[in-house]
């Protein structure tokens, strides 16, 4: 059953990174659209993301519940030491969520739209940056575990510098650009003509930025001896996965050019899977790296009965949710992933 729980943990992490990420990314794409194109982008986002965006973000809650039920020691560490960035993430999620709904459900359309729009765009950018920074803090090696003795440490030493440094900032920006890349690639398939060209261009820019940032991140980690990056680079499987994901850019670009939306979406998704896999594989299950030691995800597991129970609940929940979610995606904006996408495949 532990494997079922682990599967759902990674599965919801992946879906949050992919779907939640595409969702954040949509706001970033809108932010970086020219004044002329902002309205088009806004309407496309509403059409494509509208029905599913809320569901996309529930993966975060599922992820959180799995963590606290099955991995309480690990959860305890991240909740204490990442308190500050999490407050910022929550602030971002709140602002973004309400801005999205306000701008589409306000009965009167007037100047307040301007405010909702900017709130939506800015929080779409800031939230993934802080999420990335939180993850960066876990692997950055700067967290100090005090072992219940908090005297002799300042507030900043314990709760600020571990997540607020140049390494975590790079990770944060990297994740935000990844989100934008995902969103742009997704939106290409939902549009026609001129707008489509615009999203293709956006997708290209974000891809280039992403690759560059990836190199900078690895170089930085290597030069400043970030343990996680060093282990990552020297792990053949991880580095292989990253190289493979880089190579996949070629078919991805060809798919975009040939307007194969199904292919491009799957390829973009696969790339993220590979990057995530590479990042986790090198260190699994030691996902918190502190100044002195590494904390394993599997440390202090609760009794078998708890894992057993959670596994069953997840299987039941998954059995109810996944078909519903699939049906939702099929019925609305993402129809094309499966339906006309298949047709396009045949046409090609």
């Amino acid at each position, binding site marked *: 059953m532990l494997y079922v729980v682990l599967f759902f943990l990674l599965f919801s992490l992946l879906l949050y990174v992919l779907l939640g990420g595409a969702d954040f990314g949509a706001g970033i794409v809108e932010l970086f659209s020219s004044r002329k194109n902002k309205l088009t982008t806004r309407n496309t986002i509403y059409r494509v993301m509208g029905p599913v965006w809320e569901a996309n973000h529930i993966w975060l809650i599922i992820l*959180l519940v799995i963590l606290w039920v099955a991995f309480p020691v690990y959860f305890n560490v*991240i909740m*204490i030491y990442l308190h500050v960035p999490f407050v910022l993430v929550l602030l971002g999620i709140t602002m973004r*969520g*309400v801005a999205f709904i306000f701008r589409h459900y306000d*009965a009167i359309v007037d100047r307040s739209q301007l405010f909702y729009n900017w709130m939506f765009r800015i929080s779409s950018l800031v939230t993934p940056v802080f999420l990335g920074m939180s993850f960066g803090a876990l692997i950055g090696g700067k967290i100090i575990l005090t072992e219940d003795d908090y005297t002799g440490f300042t*507030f900043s030493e314990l709760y600020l510098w571990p997540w607020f440094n140049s390494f975590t900032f790079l990770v944060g920006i990297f994740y935000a650009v990844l989100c934008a890349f995902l969103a742009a690639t997704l939106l290409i398939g939902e549009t026609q003509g001129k707008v489509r060209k615009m999203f293709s261009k956006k997708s290209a820019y974000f891809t280039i930025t992403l690759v560059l940032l990836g190199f900078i991140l690895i170089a930085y980690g290597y030069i400043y001896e970030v343990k996680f990056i060093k282990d990552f680079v020297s792990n053949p499987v991880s580095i292989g996965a990253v190289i493979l994901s880089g190579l996949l850019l070629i078919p991805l670009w060809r798919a975009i050019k040939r307007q194969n939306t199904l292919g491009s979406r799957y390829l973009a998704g696969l790339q993220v899977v590979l990057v995530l896999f590479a990042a986790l594989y090198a260190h699994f299950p030691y996902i918190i790296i502190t100044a002195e030691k590494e904390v394993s995800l599997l440390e202090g597991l609760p009794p078998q009965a708890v894992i057993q129970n959670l596994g069953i609940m997840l299987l039941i929940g998954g059995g109810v949710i996944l078909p519903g979610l699939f049906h939702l995606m099929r019925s609305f904006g993402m129809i094309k992933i499966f339906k006309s996408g298949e047709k396009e495949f045949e046409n090609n």
Partner: protein
Amino acid sequence: MENLDFARLQMAFTLGFHIIFACIGMVMPFFMVVSHKKWLNTRNPVYLELTKSWQKGVAIFFVTGAVSGTALSFELGMLWPEFMKHAGPIIGMPFSLEGAAFFVEAIALGFYLYGWNKLPEKFHWFTGIIIGISGVASGILVVSANGWMNAPTGFDYIDGQFVNIDPVQAFLNPAWFTQALHMTLAAVVATSFAVAGVHALQVYRNKRPDLHKKAFKIAIIFGAVAAFLQPLSGDLSAKDIAERQPMKLAAMEAHYETGTNVPLYIGGIVDEENQKVTHKIAIPGALSFLAFGDFDAEVKGLKDFPEDEHPPVAIVHYAFQIMVGIGTLLMLAGILYFLSLKYKKLFNKKWYWLLFVVLAPLGFIAVEAGWVVTEVGRQPWIIYGFMKTSEAVTPMPGMEFSFYMYLVVYAVLAVTVTWLMRRQIRVLNAVKE
């Protein structure tokens, strides 16, 4: 004030905020679905207009509830890391089921909001039902976790460790049923009177009274029935608390001296220092009877418990009085509504509508007061009898900043949502029949 106090204030404030949105998100879909059904049956366009207007309300409240709920699930860990470290695995079952129910709700909402003219009519309507059912289910499930804090079961406590964990037993803890019943009814009463009150105001101001009367009738019937059942559920809760948490009962009633044939205090000013209640109305034997069904039953007073385990008596007592007072008032208002069905003349009276306008916020005040009773009444414990709140709090200093930040952000949100609702109604009223 210390870090602990600010952490508690923040939790109270964010929970109190979330509860309002969660209740509306739970109950309002049912109004929407009834109106939708009436549209399908009668094809009277007024019902379609009403359904679409309510749907916007549901969307706005659902999202605000969802984001504040996400914040809460983080806050459990961020504010009370030690509590979650031990309790998280034990009460995982209701939370994982609640996560699933909430997910179903979000999926159904996606179908409903975007399904107009795209989905088959009946299926579309049915997804509305799913929103309501899964919303109520998540509410009921999440109350189980709170029930466990009041009635911790499903483990053995040996040498300061929680061992032999049985998640199912923890899930089915003895406080769950009474609490969930009371809360679900409360959500229905509060939302129903609030929505009905908003529409009553429009009738009072003579703005499209035809439409708003229809809306009022759909909303109020839920609340009138639930308000009638609520005292019965409250009685179950009181008897349950008398048995399991005698200290909480004593605080609710500001009852200090153990005795038999104990009177019930109505009102009164609590003097915590001298452990006395002044200016009260006492009904002889009533507390003994309400708690144990026997006028001569013994009810333990606060003086029988160690003083460092007393909850803040005054707050709990006042909150309890407010909750019961409002509950009684709303029950009477429900009866008035049923009377007006027979004596239709009442619908033409201005005071009738004004009355329901005045009652609109009371249900939610009672909900908040009720949560104050159960949460403050459990203090100083976070897990009743096993872990104190002070042992659970985060070691991170500076909680006051976090509290003030949430205060500002949520206050702005509350104002904005209210303003948005007013705009919805303005647009609704602007459309001429």
